[in-house]
């Protein structure tokens, strides 16, 4: 029998039982759609995280007190500005060192108010991290040295306090203390779950006075190049440990953060895809089951075909193609649905979808393979039927 003929026969058989074929296909459709969608979302999420971490700036080293490890409790910082000076001496360039002390405070402008993150920083922040100003200017070194009460607003904070008005030169209060707005950030979006448009920057010295503290939560250093990052980190940690013998310090690089996050997302994507794969397997069992029913139902047809000259192989191929057709049609439908679902998730949530050609090809290949694997047993059974017995069956 010609292969084209076998395809035609298989298609006719599937069409003859549309509802059953459709329901059988559904298992494969759902499995493939789930795999394609979850892989697309998992890959998209990974890419998004990578972009966000890289979007912070390049060659960054973040120095924190305590052990940086998932599951470890955040340590209370004992870092102070004198430690920052020590780090600056090691780095040899103040513009490569940024600090922050963070507190949640209420900011007010007239009747408008908002609870936001107040960051005490040095004027070096835009040189270390990627931050751009849309209006006015950033803090200056003299603002930091003389503890001026000036503030740079995050894009969302500026909008909620001032609406469309120009906030530059306006007065706001932070925790009841008056500040003058000197700049507004360009919108930046979220980064690692932190809304970076919902914060205000004030000089670190002013922050210390406002908050009644002298602590520094963290120090960020921008290394001159990639090769120097880890050596620089070691020297900084060694110096800080010398200054605070009873405290542990960690220096983490973007690559380490990416590595950890990537691993987590990778495992998560893998587990989800595996669960989706199981549903594909269940779909395959359904195909096998229905094919066995189909062989039994069409025993007389098989007997007749054999009587007029079909070889066992012809019958086997016919039923195998039927199973493969069932799963590949389901696979293609599932692929379309999976891509559509991934795009829908992208449209209604911040999670982007990255549809990779290999996941689509894999889903298609797997669905065809499922058809072969789960179609073989029914097909063999059909091929081996004794024509005398088959013709006699009612």
């Amino acid at each position, binding site marked *: 029998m010609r292969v084209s003929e076998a395809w035609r026969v298989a298609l006719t058989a599937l069409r*003859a039982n549309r509802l059953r074929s459709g329901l059988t296909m559904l298992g494969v459709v759902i499995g493939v759609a789930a795999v394609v969608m979850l892989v697309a979302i998992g890959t998209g999420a990974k890419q998004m995280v990578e972009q966000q971490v890289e979007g912070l700036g390049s060659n960054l080293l973040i120095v924190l007190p305590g052990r940086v490890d998932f599951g470890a409790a955040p340590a209370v910082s004992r870092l102070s500005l004198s430690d920052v000076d020590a780090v600056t001496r090691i780095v040899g360039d103040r513009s490569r060192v940024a600090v922050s002390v963070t507190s949640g405070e209420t900011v007010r402008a007239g009747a408008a108010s908002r609870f936001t993150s107040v960051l005490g920083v040095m004027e070096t922040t835009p040189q270390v991290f990627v931050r751009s100003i849309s209006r006015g200017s950033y803090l200056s070194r003299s603002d930091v040295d003389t503890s001026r009460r000036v503030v740079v607003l995050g894009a969302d904070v500026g909008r909620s306090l001032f609406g469309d008005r120009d906030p530059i030169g306006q007065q706001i209060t932070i925790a009841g203390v008056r500040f003058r707005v000197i700049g507004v950030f360009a919108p930046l979006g979220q980064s690692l779950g932190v809304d970076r448009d919902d914060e205000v920057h004030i000089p670190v010295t002013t922050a210390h006075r406002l908050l009644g503290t002298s602590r520094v939560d963290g120090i960020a250093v921008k290394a001159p190049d990639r090769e120097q990052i880890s050596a620089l980190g070691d020297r900084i940690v060694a110096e800080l440990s010398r200054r605070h013998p009873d405290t542990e310090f960690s220096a983490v690089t973007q690559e380490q953060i990416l590595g950890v996050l990537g691993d987590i997302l990778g495992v998560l994507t893998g587990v989800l895809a595996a669960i989706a794969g199981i549903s594909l397997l269940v779909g395959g069992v359904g195909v096998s089951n229905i094919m066995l029913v189909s062989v039994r139902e069409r025993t007389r047809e098989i007997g*007749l075909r*054999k*009587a*007029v*000259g*079909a*070889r*066992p192989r012809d019958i086997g191929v016919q039923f195998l193609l039927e199973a493969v057709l069932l799963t590949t049609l389901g696979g293609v439908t599932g692929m379309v649905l999976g891509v559509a679902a991934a795009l829908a998730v992208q449209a209604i949530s911040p999670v982007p979808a990255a549809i990779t050609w290999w996941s689509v090809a894999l889903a298609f290949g797997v669905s065809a393979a499922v058809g072969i694997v789960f179609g073989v047993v029914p097909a063999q059974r059909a091929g081996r039927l004794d024509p005398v017995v088959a013709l006699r069956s009612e």
Partner: protein
Amino acid sequence: MSGPVAAVEAYDIARSYPLDGLSVPALRGVTLTVAKGDYLAIVGPSGSGKSTLMHLLGALDRPTSGRLVIGGRDVAKLSAPEMARLRNETVGFVFQAFHLLPRTSALDNVALPLVYRGLRAGARRERAAAMLGRVGLGHRLTHRPSQLSGGEQQRVAIARALVTEPAVLLADEPTGNLDTTTGEAVLALLETLNAESGVALVLVTHDREVAARARRQIVMRDGLVVSCG
């Protein structure tokens, strides 16, 4: 009666079936020759072994002992695919219950054996249409079995059996599901085709009147031929 080259030759063929560890004989040793263009009837009550004999003569089954030569080929030496090819080229079947594929046009039903011969769709249809014309159904090509009367369905089945131009046509109670008039017409058609095309016609029936029309009668009982005319 046998011509120089017989369509089917059977020498002392027997067939038994295993049942609960025992070997139950259905056919106990039959010697028979179906010549080219022959017209014979196999008669006997149910359980006499006539269906078993027909399955053997049609290469659907192999004898447990004896020698069976169909279309010049010894069945004992053939593999399953070779048996299939033998059925396709040498034998045509007509069944009591027609055995047409549902949801399939008369034309495609008749063309089915040619599918397994590897013929292209165009050639298949051409030959199937010509054959349907010969059985008087040239105007029913696209009808499905459910749209045809019993007599018409059996004519489609006859066309399917003959489209491969076999040496022998095995008809198992071909009139069993038909009323007398229609059955008579189907028998007449089979006889005409036998006379015209020279295909050997083997009629399996329990109906003595039908059997009496054949040139030869083979009467069976308990797996043996009791009379050979």
